């Protein structure tokens, strides 16, 4: 056989090989067809005004003070006095207009999450102290995703009659007045508390990956304490921290749960994600150019943040551990003042951030939670209802099935794409590499809208057509959405696994006469099975708790709705439903803990829950 020029160019294989071409083309086409085209096609209407191509909608958004408002309006905090004579400070944040608010919130959340994540990561990586194992476990807890209920509990905590005021105002008298946090401030708080472990995990990995000799050398030259941290440790960990921070930025930008929970305050609604969501749900079936334009702006911001940081991170990814270096982690006992900070400041902070999850569990077993500090009464009714009511069970089963099916696709996609990108250097390699990771940067609500129009236009009057509400079955659309949105988690894991398997193991097999197929199935897959498994588990967990697409497209036919659509529905409807939602939250938490434990036991490694680079 002669060398095939185009095969070499595209796929990096001089002799055309079907399996390799498939590994390139399957994930490539899948992502193009089910992500790029739907999203771009839908967004295209943003460029039409009165039948012509126009930037009208962008202009009108960016010049409307509703969307962009300088100087900002409103008071950050308002002081009021109740009839009982108590002073209450209402903290809501100020209004920069929808677009800038989103940016400001995302930036603040990123900043807060980075600060907290970095501090926790640093003490965990560098200090040995009593209760460290408690910290270690507790730091995982905020990562457990319980859509809506989580933010609901946070909102409750920061009411003027909530837990925080109870502790700091009533009990400890530290606060001279009550505070109540609402509006954008509430959103920032809820998101920061939810997302900071993402930075924590990335920062922690960075800190322990710093070649200890780099710090020892500085110390050896006379540096210590904060100077050492500032000049050596922190700059070296910065790429990892930045990677985590970007994820937080994007997650904050697209988050719906917190604005929905804080919706009572008009400010909390002045966020891009909420605006798109709310208009989309109301105007179901109409193609609003204004939402499309807003979606494009949001997508652009997310993608820019993402690409920017990827560039920065890849520039500064230092090959940390050099050959021959000693691997002795720098861990020391905290000095008294450091211990004081750990126990007096960080421990309470940590407890605070895990309270939402605790609150969810309490709520699931309580009769009600209205004006009291904590939920009241004990009942197993809601948990029973969750487990035994056939309708509720159906939502659970739906979610399990969709997530399961999505994971099968995800495994196939991540194995093929990682195989192609890690083993071959065709011109399609960088394209595929970016495509596989890009879903992280596409806000879920944008995907949901894209699918809505895509499926209603490409498959009209079939069960795939979301406007065909009567017979629309969201199963297929949700599986697709999950498989795309959660692909990056698994793909990173498989890719990492492939990188650890030296190519020569495959070459040796082919060199001994084995075909490509036999080599992949007989040599490669067994070797990366743990990575595949770990990644699949991760994707599964995140599929189970996917909200954006679930609560929009998924709720169009409740018969086939996923658990998150149901949670959102009941959170906002009949009384006592917050408890049922919490019970479902407990179920999700259980699934997640089981998965993590399973992954840890089977792959014998602490799995970084979310990683970007």
């Amino acid at each position, binding site marked *: *056989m*002669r*060398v095939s020029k185009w095969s070499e160019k595209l796929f990096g294989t001089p002799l055309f090989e079907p399996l390799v071409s498939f590994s390139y083309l399957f994930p490539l086409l899948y992502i193009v067809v089910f992500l790029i085209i739907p999203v771009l096609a839908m967004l295209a209407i943003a460029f039409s005004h009165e039948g012509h191509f126009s930037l009208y909608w962008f202009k009108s958004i960016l010049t409307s003070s509703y969307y962009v408002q300088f100087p900002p309006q409103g008071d950050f905090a308002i002081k009021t006095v109740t009839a009982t004579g108590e002073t209450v400070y209402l903290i809501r944040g100020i209004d920069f207009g929808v677009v800038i608010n989103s940016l400001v919130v995302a930036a603040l959340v990123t900043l807060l999450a980075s600060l907290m994540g970095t501090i926790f990561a640093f003490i965990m990586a560098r200090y040995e102290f009593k209760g460290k194992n408690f910290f270690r476990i507790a730091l995982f807890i905020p990562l457990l995703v319980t859509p809506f209920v989580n933010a609901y509990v946070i909102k409750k905590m920061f009411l003027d009659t909530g837990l925080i005021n109870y502790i700091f105002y009533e009990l400890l008298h530290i606060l001279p007045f009550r505070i109540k946090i609402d509006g954008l401030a509430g959103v920032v708080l809820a998101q920061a508390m939810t997302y900071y472990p993402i930075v924590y995990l990335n920062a922690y990995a960075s800190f322990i990956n710093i070649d200890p000799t780099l710090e020892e050398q500085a110390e050896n030259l006379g540096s210590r304490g904060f100077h050492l941290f500032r000049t050596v440790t922190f700059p070296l960990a910065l790429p990892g921290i930045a990677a985590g921070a970007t994820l937080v930025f994007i997650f904050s930008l697209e988050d719906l749960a917190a604005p929905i929970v804080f919706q009572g305050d008009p400010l909390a609604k002045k966020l891009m994600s909420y605006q798109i969501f709310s208009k989309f749900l109301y105007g179901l079936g109409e193609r609003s150019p204004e939402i499309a334009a807003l979606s494009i702006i949001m997508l652009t911001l997310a993608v820019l943040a993402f690409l920017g940081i990827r560039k920065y991170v890849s520039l500064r990814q230092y090959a940390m551990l050099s050959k021959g270096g000693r691997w002795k982690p720098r861990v020391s006992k905290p000095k008294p003042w450091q211990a004081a900070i750990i126990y007096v400041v960080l421990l309470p902070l940590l407890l605070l951030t895990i309270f939402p999850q605790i609150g969810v569990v309490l709520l699931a077993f309580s009769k009600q939670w209205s004006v009291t500090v904590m939920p009241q009464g004990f009942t197993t009714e809601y948990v029973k209802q969750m487990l035994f009511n056939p309708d509720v069970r159906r939502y659970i089963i739906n979610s399990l099935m969709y997530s399961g099916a999505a994971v099968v696709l995800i495994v196939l996609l991540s194995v093929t794409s990682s195989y192609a990108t890690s083993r071959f250097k065709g011109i399609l390699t960088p394209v595929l590499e970016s495509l596989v990771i890009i879903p992280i940067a596409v806000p879920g609500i944008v995907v949901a809208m894209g699918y809505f129009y895509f499926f209603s236009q490409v498959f009209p009057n079939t069960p795939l057509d979301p406007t065909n509400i009567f017979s629309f079955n969201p199963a297929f659309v949700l599986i697709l959405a999950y498989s795309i949105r959660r692909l990056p988690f698994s793909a990173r894991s498989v890719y990492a696994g492939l990188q650890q398997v030296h190519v*020569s193991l495959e070459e040796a097999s*082919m060199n001994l006469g084995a075909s490509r197929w036999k080599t992949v199935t007989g*040599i490669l897959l067994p070797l990366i099975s743990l990575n595949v498994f770990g990644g699949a588990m991760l994707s599964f967990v995140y599929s189970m708790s996917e909200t954006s697409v679930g609560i929009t497209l998924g709720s169009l036919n409740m018969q086939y709705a996923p658990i998150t659509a149901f949670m959102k529905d009941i959170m906002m409807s009949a009384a006592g439903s917050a408890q049922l939602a919490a019970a479902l939250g407990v179920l999700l938490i259980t699934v997640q803990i089981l998965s993590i434990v399973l992954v840890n036991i089977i792959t014998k490694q602490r799995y970084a829950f979310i990683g970007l680079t």
Partner: protein
Amino acid sequence: MVEVKLENIVKTFGETVALKGIDLHIKHGELFTLLGPSGCGKSTTLRIIAGLDFPDKGRIFFDDQEVTYLSSSERGAVLVFQNYALWPHMTVYDNIAYGLKIKKLPKDEIEKKVRWALQLVKLEGFEDRYPTQLSGGQQQRVAIARAIVVEPKLLLLDEPLSNLDAKLRLEMRSEIRRIQRELGITVLYVTHDQEEAMAISDRIAVMNVGTVEQVGTPREIYEKPKTEFVASFMGKTNVIPAKVVEREGDKVTVEFEHFRLEGVTYTDKSDKVVIVIRPERISLKPIENAVKLEGKVDLIEYYGFFIEVVGMFGETRIIARTISDKDVMSLKPQGPVTFYINKDDILVLPKQL
């Protein structure tokens, strides 16, 4: 056993030209070594012969059959990777049996052959271990057994010893030699270690940035290097830039600093030359008919088996090596020293860039 011919093999990777037109002829049952510095194209050549990469130009023959575009699995030239590439999820037995299973041999025949290979590499009793449970040397023997058991026409070894410590390296070297002789297969061996190449090879090709500079027996290459590069690559040697100032037939006079060496053999046209003198050919005791260089001692380094005296001749450092303590007794750093060199031991070669 096979004869391998490479005709004008060219291979580029993007911008870098890895091979600039290689011609080689490896004979039946020979242990042939490619020797050269890192990045000169040794592995590339090997991989092209194994069918893991394909040349941009040129042709490859096994005996008289052209195999240039045959895929690796059809070619029967088996490569033993530098890192052994043992499959960690298979036992020693399964690793070795892999190639036979692919050929769909009957089970008992596989068993028989694997046993034979295990015996050959002296690893009986290790069949059920996993590669991680073996030492480096044992792993290498498994890799060789895995290659040999399929009875390859050609065995390719890519720096198989570079990961081993000095002691093990010596052992493995003779092992490879022994197996090659026992089976009489053609072996192509890659290394950047000149000592290893000389110890093991029937013939050596010295490579330099994508070209073959010289092919010959170890002795030919050590004693009659054809280029400055080959000379300097074969062990520590003195390479002194100089100029031809007079010619008489193939005898010339060359000059460096203010020293003149007369009547040395040189045939090339270029006037820019290097004088190559092996340190051990420089005597510290007077010898007859020798060129005499007077300078001062820069350094005396003791190496146990031998002693090196680094002399400064003007700005030029020349190293002399002796195994006799007495020769250096009278020398001291910065003191005077005289080097005696037999004219036959002076090699003048055109200067390379």
